[in-house]
C-alpha cells in the first residue's frame, strides 16, 4: 500500500489546495517553499524547533484519561490530548514557533499574522517577542471589539494590532489584509498564517509543524491503553489542530478520524460555519481551492458560530480532500451542544475548555455513549477556555 504523500509539488490535495494568488505573491511563495524544503529536514533547524517546543511551549503535552466524564457518558473511554496546557493555552503555538524560527533563518526581521479571536495573534506576538522580531497583527475591527483582552495581551507582548475595516471586518478580512501587507513588504516580512489554509506551502507547512500533536499521541496512547485510539475527534475551523492530530494517523486506517465543524444555530438555518457538513460548493479563497460558504454568484457569505476560532467560511484544503476520499468524516455541532459540553467538562473534570474545543467534546460524548467500554475515543483538547469566559457569562445572562 502506498503511503500518504500529499500534497504534490504545487500544493494540490487532489483537486483541492494549490496556489491561487496574484503574480505579485508568487516569488514570495516560491522562496518560502524552497526555504521550508531546505530546513524541514535540517538537523540543526529541527533541534532548535524541538528545543523551543520542549522548553518554551512545555511539550510533550500529556494525554489525560477523563475518567469521570467517561463514567457519566457510559461508553467508550474518553481521553484528552492536553494542548490547553501549552504556553499561551492552545495548539496554535506549535505552528508559530516553527514559522517564526523559519522567518529568522530567512533573515526576515518582521512577522505579520491574521487573527480572529486573537489566539493565533497572541501566539505569534509571543514567539516574536521571544525571538526579537517586529510583529504586526491584523484583526477584524468587529473582533477587536469582541476580544479586547487578547488585543491587550498582544500589545503587552510588543505587537502592533491593526483593526481591519474592510468587508465583514472579521477573520477572512484580516487574512486578506495580511496578504496585502505581505505583497507590499515582501522583502523584509514573513507572513505567519495561523491555519492549514492559504496558498501552498502554508497548508502543508502548518500541518507539519502541528503534527507534533499526533506524533506524540502515537507514542502516548499505547503506553496508556496498549493500542491506538479507535476514534480521534477534533474541531475544525480552518482545521489546524485537526490536521495536527490526524496527519500522523492517516495511513493507520484502523483509527477513525472525525472533524467537528461549527453548526452555529443549526445547519438548516444557514447560520453556521460548516462548509463540509453543509455540502457547500467548491471555490477559491485565500490562495487555495476548497469547500467554501458562498452564494450562487461566488461571493463569500458571513458565517456564524459562538466560537470565534471556528468562524471561517472555508476549510483547509486537506480536509476537503480527506472528506472526499472518505478517510475522515465531518459532522456539525451547534452552539447549544458545544456550550453544554463546555459546562460539562468544567464540572466533571475541572478543565475549562475553549469553545472551539467544546464542539469536539460534544461530538465525542455523542459517539462514546454508543461505543463499548473497551474502545477509546481521543479528543484533541486544542485550547483552554479562559478566553471564552466573558462570552459564556454573557450567554448565561451573568455579568462579571
Amino acid at each position, binding site marked *: 500500500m502506498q503511503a500518504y504523500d500529499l500534497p504534490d509539488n504545487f500544493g494540490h490535495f487532489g483537486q483541492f489546495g494549490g496556489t*491561487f494568488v496574484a503574480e*505579485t505573491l508568487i516569488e514570495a511563495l516560491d522562496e518560502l517553499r524552497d526555504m521550508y524544503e531546505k530546513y524541514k529536514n535540517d538537523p540543526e533547524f529541527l533541534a532548535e524547533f524541538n528545543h523551543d517546543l520542549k522548553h518554551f511551549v512545555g511539550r510533550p503535552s500529556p494525554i489525560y484519561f477523563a475518567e469521570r466524564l467517561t463514567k457519566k457518558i457510559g461508553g467508550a473511554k474518553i481521553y484528552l490530548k492536553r494542548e490547553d496546557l501549552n504556553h499561551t493555552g492552545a495548539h496554535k503555538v506549535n505552528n508559530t514557533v516553527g514559522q517564526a524560527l523559519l522567518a529568522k533563518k530567512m533573515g526576515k526581521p518582521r512577522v505579520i499574522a491574521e487573527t480572529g479571536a486573537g489566539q493565533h495573534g497572541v501566539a505569534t506576538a509571543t514567539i516574536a517577542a521571544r525571538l526579537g522580531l517586529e510583529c504586526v497583527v491584523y484583526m477584524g475591527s468587529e473582533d477587536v471589539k469582541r476580544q479586547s483582552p487578547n488585543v491587550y495581551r498582544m500589545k503587552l507582548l510588543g505587537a502592533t494590532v491593526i483593526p481591519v475595516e474592510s468587508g465583514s471586518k472579521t477573520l477572512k*478580512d484580516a487574512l*486578506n489584509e495580511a496578504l496585502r501587507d505581505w505583497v507590499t513588504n515582501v522583502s523584509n516580512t514573513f507572513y505567519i498564517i495561523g491555519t492549514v489554509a492559504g496558498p501552498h506551502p502554508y497548508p502543508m507547512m502548518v500541518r507539519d509543524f502541528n503534527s507534533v500533536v499526533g506524533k506524540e499521541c502515537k507514542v502516548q496512547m499505547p503506553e496508556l491503553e496498549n493500542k491506538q485510539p479507535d476514534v480521534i475527534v477534533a474541531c475544525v475551523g480552518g482545521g489546524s489542530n485537526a490536521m495536527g492530530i490526524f496527519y500522523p494517523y492517516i495511513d493507520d486506517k484502523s483509527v477513525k478520524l472525525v472533524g467537528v465543524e461549527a453548526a452555529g444555530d443549526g445547519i438548516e438555518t444557514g447560520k453556521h460555519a460548516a462548509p463540509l457538513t453543509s455540502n457547500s460548493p467548491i471555490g477559491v479563497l485565500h490562495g487555495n481551492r476548497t469547500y467554501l460558504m458562498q452564494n*450562487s454568484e*461566488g461571493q*463569500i457569505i458571513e458565517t456564524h458560530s459562538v466560537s470565534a476560532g471556528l468562524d471561517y467560511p472555508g476549510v483547509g484544503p486537506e480536509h476537503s480532500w480527506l472528506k472526499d476520499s472518505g478517510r475522515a468524516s465531518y459532522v456539525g455541532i451547534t452552539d447549544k451542544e458545544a456550550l453544554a459540553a463546555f459546562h460539562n467538562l468544567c464540572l466533571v473534570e475541572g478543565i475549562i475548555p475553549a469553545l472551539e474545543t467544546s464542539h469536539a467534546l460534544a461530538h465525542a460524548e455523542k459517539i462514546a455513549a454508543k461505543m463499548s467500554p473497551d474502545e477509546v475515543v481521543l479528543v484533541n483538547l486544542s485550547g483552554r477556555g479562559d478566553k471564552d469566559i466573558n462570552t459564556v457569562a454573557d450567554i448565561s445572562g451573568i455579568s462579571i
Partner: protein
Amino acid sequence: MSRIQATFKSLKNKKQKALVPFFTAGDPHPGKTVEIMNALVDSGADMIELGIPFSDPMADGPVIQRASERALKNSVGITTTIKLAAEFRKNNKMTPLILMGYANPIEAIGIDNFISLIKNADIDGVITVDYPPEESVQFVKKLKENNIDSIFLISPTTDDKRLKLIINQATGFLYYVSLKGVTGSANIDIKEVSEKVKNIKTFTDLPLGVGFGVRDAKTAKEVAEISDAVVIGSRIVQEIENSNDKDLINNIRNLMVEIKSSINKNSETSE
C-alpha cells in the same frame, strides 16, 4: 484579428499609446455603469477594463475594495456585470472590453457558463487576478477556443523563467504591475519600471500595458513613453467615490482628458 490586437495595431500606426481605464461594475450604482463606460470612450479610452465585484479582493487596495463593497450592496455580481457589458456592446462595436476579477465568482457560475456568457456579450479579454498560469491551463485553453484573450499580470518579482511561462499562455497584451503591492499603492519608480519593461520586450512581441501605480497625468506620460498602454484604475475609482451623481460623468471626463492629452503629447507634437 481580435479587437484588442486591432486596437494596438491602429494606435501603433498613429504612434500613440493606449489609455485603459478601469472601474468596478455597479459602482456607484448599476444605472451609471454603461454611462460611465460611454463617457470613458468619449474622453479618450482606447479599451476598458471592467471590474467584477468580489467580496474578498485580496490584490486590491482600499479604494477598489470599497468600490467592490458599494457594487455588492447594489447586488451587482458577476452575472449583472456581464449583462452591463453586453448593454454597452450593443452601441459600441469598436472598443475592446476586458473583464477583470477573481477566480471564485467565475468558478461559482461555472467556467463553461462564464465563457458562453461573455462570448454572447462580445467581451474581448479576461484578467483573472488569482489564476497564475499554472492553475489556469484549461481556462485559458477554453478562452482561446472562443477567441477571447487571456491577459496575465507580470510583477516586478517575476523572473525570466516565469516570464516565458506567462508569455506562452498570454494573448492580447501583457499587464505589468508597476510596484510591489496592491492596486493604488505608492508612486512608481519609473526608472525601475523602464528596465523591467525593456527586459520583458526581449521575450515577446505582445503589447505591454503598465498599471497599479498610475495616479496622475505626469506618471501616465512617463509610463506611456516606455510602454504600449497605460492602465489607470484606483484614480478613476476615486473620482467615482468622491463625486455626486450630478458631477460624476463630467469629473471622469475631465480626468480622462487630462491624462489622454499628457500621454499622447509627444506623438501629437512630432506629427
